[in-house]
């Protein structure tokens, strides 16, 4: 069987051996933002539950979400969700088989990074 050497064979290089690249960094950032947004989602669910419960409960939840710390969390959440949205569009484009060349993929990475900041600033101005 071809399996005799199992466990003692050369492995292909893994993450630690590669120099950080724009494509890999923007990819891991998609995962980090997506999972970190759980905190925002739970805070918003808490806010809705408090609003549906009583004015007192609402005052507590609303107080936390609109405190300076709440504002900080919400601004970071905006940055995260706009980034994740743009990165998601990038994945939908890649799924069609286009823009996969290194140059174009890196350009999409820059669009995600810069675009998320621009959209966050625009959202803060509009809302």
């Amino acid at each position, binding site marked *: 069987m071809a399996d005799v050497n199992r466990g003692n064979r050369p492995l292909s290089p893994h993450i630690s051996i590669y120099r950080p690249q724009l494509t890999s960094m923007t990819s891991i950032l998609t*995962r980090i933002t*997506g*999972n970190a*947004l*759980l905190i925002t*989602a*739970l805070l*918003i*669910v808490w*806010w*809705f*539950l408090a*609003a*549906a*419960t009583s*004015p007192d409960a*609402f*005052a507590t939840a*609303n107080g936390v*979400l*609109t405190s300076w710390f709440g504002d900080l969390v*919400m601004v970071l959440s*905006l940055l995260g*969700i706009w980034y994740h*949205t743009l990165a*998601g*569009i990038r*994945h*939908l484009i890649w*799924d069609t088989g286009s823009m996969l060349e290194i140059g174009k993929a890196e350009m999409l990475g820059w669009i995600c990074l810069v675009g998320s900041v621009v959209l966050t600033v625009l*959202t803060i101005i*509009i*809302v």
Partner: protein
Amino acid sequence: MRYLTDRKLAEGLGSAKSGVKHHWSMILSSVALLGLIPLFIFTFGPILGAPHAEVVAYFGRPFPAIVAALTLIVGFRHFAGGCQVMIEDYVHGLARKVTILLVYCLSYAAMAVGVFAIARLAL
């Protein structure tokens, strides 16, 4: 002589299993969220920080309430699916199964609480 076709012998032995279905469900929810997230940001954003009575009246209107409920439903499904992929990458063995189970429990619980609260505000 075996009465099994070659295909029958090979089926289920690959590594992908239900991976295609999972990927497709993530694509579906991501496209739905592409519309829902901007709608939610610009309906929820302006009312955050308003007094209680105003918030109750605001979510008594159909549009903000339906957008918020849909965003929570699709959003938490999308989160559970994405978080599952992350767990499958970094956690192994029994811990993997338990973590995925907990993530799905948390996602559906939060989704249910959110939709219940919005329904109560809206009705």
